[in-house]
């Protein structure tokens, strides 16, 4: 538990804040890619403390937020089947589909269970041979190795009542899409430390040089984030655009090669839809043809399930940093944390939910004469 206190030391944090303020000669716009980083930034109020020198745009790196509506609807459909035990990480359960969420399906009798590891779902399948167990395989490169392992293991053990509904996405194509957008405002990136623990950072080197944008591989603790911001701002001030590694205690340039091999053995690169953003070419992972038997989309013929996102929800523009959440017409009206239209309003760290809470606080504070 040393990490918990060591990387949260308030004195060191304030020193880093001052260092960032000292090095910045202007206000820079940075994007933290990963939802875990957004979580820390919002919970610690880092964006607020640094608001005079840095604008943080919360990137598309929250798997809950970017899983397309269509896949959610497919999950809901499967969860509603009598022969299926549907398993998922906890925070996917409240993500709204077109008409409901997994909790509501559960209230109507669907067998929906929270698991902490995909291997638990394989075990569940082994113990329930008369039921179909489906695991909702979402996430970035970070969760891909464990999910690949589950698929591989199920096949090895001959557990043929186990399948996965895959909605894996990968980071570099999303960053490319953001940088290619004509109205892009992002000047530097905090790359996701855990994704890079698996993948390393060689993929980011061509991005940094082609788009002349600094990219700093960054961890998740408050001191990690602050140091990552400091390193990015320093590059910007010095006119450099390199890939640097803040998260040295976890990340090597080449990443975790056995994990990469495992992922490559089970998954292949596919085009993938991102909620609110649309299809980004080669931005996702799907099962290789030899694992078709473990592919829930094929097993349950889910192709017919298509979905249109609510027009009022501008989550895609928020995720790309085009608009602030409060600039969305639905914000706080049709769309609230209790009745979210889009995923960024679901979790407390989602960009929209974070602004919803914080904005309310600011208004109340002003009204209270603070």
């Amino acid at each position, binding site marked *: *538990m040393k990490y*918990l206190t060591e990387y949260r*030391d308030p004195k060191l*944090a*304030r020193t880093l*804040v001052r260092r960032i303020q000292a090095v910045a000669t202007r206000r820079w716009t940075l994007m933290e890619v*990963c*939802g875990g980083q957004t*979580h820390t930034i*919002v*919970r*610690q*109020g*880092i964006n*607020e*403390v640094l608001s005079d020198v840095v604008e943080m745009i919360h990137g598309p790196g929250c*798997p809950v937020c970017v899983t397309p*509506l*269509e896949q959610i609807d497919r999950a809901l*459909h499967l969860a*509603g089947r009598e022969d299926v035990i549907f398993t998922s990480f*906890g*925070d996917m*359960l409240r993500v709204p589909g*077109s*008409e*409901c*969420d997994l*909790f*509501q*399906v*559960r*209230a*109507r009798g669907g067998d929906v269970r*929270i698991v902490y590891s995909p291997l638990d779902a394989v075990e569940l399948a082994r113990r329930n041979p008369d039921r179909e167990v489906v695991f909702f395989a979402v*996430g*970035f490169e970070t*969760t891909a190795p464990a999910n690949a392992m589950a698929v591989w293991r199920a096949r090895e053990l001959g557990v043929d009542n186990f399948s996965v509904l895959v909605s894996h996405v990968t980071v570099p194509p999303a960053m490319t899409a953001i940088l290619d957008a004509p109205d892009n405002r992002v000047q530097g990136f905090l790359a996701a430390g855990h994704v890079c623990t698996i993948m390393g950072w060689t993929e980011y080197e061509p991005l940094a040089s082609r788009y002349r944008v600094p990219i700093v591989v960054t961890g998740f603790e*408050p001191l990690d984030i*602050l140091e990552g911001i400091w390193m990015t701002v320093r590059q910007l001030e010095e006119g450099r655009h390199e890939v640097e590694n803040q998260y040295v205690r976890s990340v090597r340039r080449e990443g975790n090669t056995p994990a990469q091999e495992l992922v490559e053995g089970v998954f292949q690169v596919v085009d993938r*839809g991102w909620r609110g*953003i*649309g*299809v980004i070419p080669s931005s996702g992972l799907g099962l290789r043809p030899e694992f078709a038997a473990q592919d829930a989309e094929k097993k349950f013929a*889910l192709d017919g*399930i*298509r*979905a*249109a*996102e609510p027009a009022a929800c501008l989550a*895609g523009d928020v995720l790309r940093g085009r608009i602030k959440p409060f600039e969305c017409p639905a914000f706080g009206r049709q769309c609230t*944390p*209790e009745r979210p239209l889009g995923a960024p309003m679901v*979790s*407390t*760290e989602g960009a929209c939910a974070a602004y919803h*809470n914080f904005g309310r606080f600011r208004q*109340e504070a002003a009204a*209270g004469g*603070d």
Partner: protein
Amino acid sequence: MAAFTEGGRSLASGAVCPAPRNDQERVQLGHGSGGKMSARLLEERFLPRFGNRHLSPLGDGAVVPVSGEEIVISTDSFVVSPLEFPGGNIGHLAVHGTVNDLAMMGADPTYLSAGFILEEGLSFEVLDRILDAMTEAADAAGVAVVTGDTKVVDRGKADGMFINTTGVGMLHAGFRPNPQGVCPGDAVVVSGPIGRHGMAIMAVREGFAFDAEIRSDSANLAPVVAALRRDLGGAVHCLRDATRGGLASALNEIASASGVGMELEDGRVPVPEPVAGACEMLGLDPLYVANEGVLVAMVAAEVAQKAVDILRNHPVAAEAAVIGTVVESHPGMVVLLTGVGGTRVVDTLPGDQLPRIC
């Protein structure tokens, strides 16, 4: 917005969503979370029907007049699974839960009723252990179980057993802790480390083995409250036990009911290391994890240190601490001042806390 949206067709024309659009049609687990869904359930369905001046303040219990005296009545149901866990069992909870609710209203617990719903097949060995625990807890708290009921339901219709207890307590003149008594400037005091009960249950339920065993904090808080009453009396403005929904939900309830804001200081809220570690691993926030032996007190600023000293004399409150202040600004809202120097709104959750993916 790109091809994805334009190319799609509405779900309505394709597959069928297995739940209806109106999410209020059925009870969901989140309605029992102690969060916003629970509050809405009460506001929309229970209060319009049952609301009266005793019920509507929604305190931990109700103050009612009986033959010229005022007594406090409180009721609670216990549905924990598993029935036994490190640090206690459902029997301890059933006594402590109701006794603590009475204590938070400022009452001395005196009598309990106990209703048991037993599932066919429950072993007598387990039942005996639970009843022994109840007896032990009731004796220690000085309350008598004076009436009760048992029912048996088919196998599969209850999780081993459910217990309901109702308690009656006597008030003391001049001691009525309640949200209306909370004023800006009050100190917010917590009686001990948070998150132990919820994480102990989770560890058993999910089969997690953490480095150090986490034990439930189930405890009788009435002696602690009695000590606060004797030494500080009316300077104790409000008390609440931070059970379902954790410390964050308890503070939000009080902030809303009192029309004040609260400011907490990160790092002051005591979180045991094993709880912090387990929460970190699972992506949970200890502020929202249930306790069964932790109270939060709003006391006049000038007696804050004294309150902490009084609490620390009791083993169940040995790690009591001042964690924040009641403020005039942002009424109804609890805000945490972070170590970095930022602020974070500690809101009530919609439903149960969900483990995060990343």
